């Protein structure tokens, strides 16, 4: 199987090796065409964003206004903070120049003069690796003013790396722009969309690192070639990061539409000790979990996963064996979302905190069966009531875990709560308001 994003070539991160394998030829090819042609090819290739929403990349580019005096920007999202997602890090380490080349082509297609590559702060080492690659590219005249001589075209652009500082929310596109602007990473209300009003109020396109890395091969080998790989409606290869209870965790580049069971059992070596699978989260922690017995025939592409009751997300597959305590997993995940909620919208800021409290109560064995419904109720009241998708990201795991693994909660809950209530009113509403134990 041909690999597009992470080819098996030794030292591919090295500029000379990259050049020897046809590196930076796609830019030249692209610059000889009109911007409309490039956008058209990317549209026809069927490339869909790899950051979670699986939106058509070419279509996104076409939203950029053609006639405007304002500067245009490209942001590349390498924040990658979703638990279970660790694919972009491989690109920074093993294939940085294809990413840079993709940025150069994208900048040309949308006529952006500046590109900001946002990398999460924890990735110090990968920021340095990427900076090294970028410095090399600048030195050889592939980026910046010298591009004119190198590519024989009067288009130039600059690429900057912006290092995050530990906020999951900055993976949300409008929050990412605020972070680049040097502000708190608060998501913005949409509309206006970034293509109209993005970075510093200018037209901006935001793409995922993996998406951009797919661009040079599409230009070089043609959209027909790309659209024939994998599932027709979501073509190309996808980087699947497999983690949790598997023998060989890691990132596997496979055609879209590969069977989930094949990825787990063949590529990732199956579950240790031959145990059964209890639960799989197929697209990073925010996506609805699937029950182990419902995995047969599930294909890994956006539409098939939606039909199976989940979503492709970032392709981070978390596998949990039969002896995993799902309630504790959910409790840990809820703490994550509570920690990462930016605090702008009340339903998310307060709701994530309530979910943590309720799950703590359940794990501590103090909850009644009604508390599980209350938890579900809180989750449903976050969903759809927030500015950004972190609300859904926090609510979905809770909502779908309760729906699909209700029996797991039965083990922890009794018919009535065991907590003493301080007065009669509270004792009549035993399932609400966790109150500290009162000495009688």
């Amino acid at each position: 199987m041909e690999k597009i994003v992470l080819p098996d070539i030794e030292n591919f991160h090295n500029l000379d090796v990259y050049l020897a394998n046809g590196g930076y030829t796609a830019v030249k090819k692209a610059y000889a065409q009109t911007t409309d042609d490039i956008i058209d090819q990317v549209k026809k290739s069927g490339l869909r964003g790899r950051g979670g929403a699986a939106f058509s990349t070419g279509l996104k580019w076409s939203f950029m206004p053609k006639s405007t005096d304002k500067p245009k920007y490209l942001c590349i999202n390498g924040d990658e903070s979703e638990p279970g997602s660790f694919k972009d890090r491989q690109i920074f380490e093993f294939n940085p120049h294809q990413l840079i080349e993709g940025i150069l082509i994208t900048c040309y297609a949308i006529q952006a003069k500046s590109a900001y590559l946002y990398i999460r702060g924890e990735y110090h080492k990968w920021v340095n690796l990427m900076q090294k690659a970028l410095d090399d590219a600048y030195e050889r005249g592939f980026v910046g003013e010298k591009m004119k001589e190198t590519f024989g075209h009067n288009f130039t652009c600059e690429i900057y790396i912006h290092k995050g500082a530990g906020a999951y929310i900055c993976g949300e596109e409008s929050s990412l722009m605020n972070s680049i602007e040097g502000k708190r990473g608060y998501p913005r209300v949409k509309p206006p969309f970034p293509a109209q009003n993005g970075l510093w109020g200018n037209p901006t396109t935001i793409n995922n690192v993996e998406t951009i890395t797919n661009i040079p091969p599409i230009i070089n080998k043609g959209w027909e070639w790309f659209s024939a790989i994998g599932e027709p409606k979501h073509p190309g290869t996808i980087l699947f990061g497999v983690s949790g209870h598997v023998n060989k965790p890691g990132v596997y580049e496979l055609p879209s539409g590969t069977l989930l069971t094949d990825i787990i059992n063949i590529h990732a070596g199956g579950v240790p000790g031959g145990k059964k699978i209890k639960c799989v989260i197929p697209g990073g922690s925010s996506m609805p979990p699937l029950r182990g017995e419902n995995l047969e025939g599930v294909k890994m592409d956006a539409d098939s996963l939606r039909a199976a009751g989940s979503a492709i997300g970032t392709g981070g597959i978390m596998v949990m064996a039969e002896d995993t305590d799902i309630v504790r997993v959910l409790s840990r995940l809820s703490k994550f979302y509570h920690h990462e909620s930016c605090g702008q919208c009340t339903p998310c800021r307060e709701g994530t905190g309530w979910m943590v409290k309720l799950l703590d109560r359940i794990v501590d064995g103090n909850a009644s069966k009604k508390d599980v419904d209350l938890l579900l109720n809180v989750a449903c009241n976050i969903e759809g009531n927030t500015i950004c998708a972190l609300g859904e990201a926090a609510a979905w795991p809770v909502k779908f875990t309760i729906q699909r693994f209700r029996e797991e909660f039965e083990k922890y809950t009794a018919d009535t709560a065991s907590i003493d209530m301080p007065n009669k009113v509270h004792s009549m509403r035993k399932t609400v308001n966790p109150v500290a134990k009162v000495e009688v």
Partner: protein
Amino acid sequence: MPFTFTEENINKINTVVKKYPYKNAAVMPVLYIAQEQNGWISIEVMQEVARTLEMPEEDVLGVATFYTMYHKKPAGRHHVQVCTNVSCMLRGGFDVYKAVKDKLQITHGGVTGDGKYSLEEVECMGSCGTAPMIAVNEDFYENLTPAQALSIIDSLK
């Protein structure tokens, strides 16, 4: 303690500011430079950053408090970060965290008496495929058993 940037760091700041069309956008990288020099971001550091970038002090405070990687109180020389998020948890992240906690005798956010170590229970670090992991300052150590994590901590000078 009043804080001023070293000459070397002022040069670094002058370079980094050029990456952005507006000076105040450089607040995040400049805070990193300040943290490298001072070890943590005190109020005086924030004031100096605000002065340097010609922006309101409260905006610097807002940014510094929003992002978890800026230390708002002194950290140990070795800032030990243990991930306990789901992928690490499934592969023993909590065992590693407990071993480290027991060894250093501090919990989340604590600093040892000699100022050598500080501990943080962190969210996903992107090492899910090589879990469990700890990070010490900027370095990742992956695929660990609790014993290996402890020997790494022992080896720190």
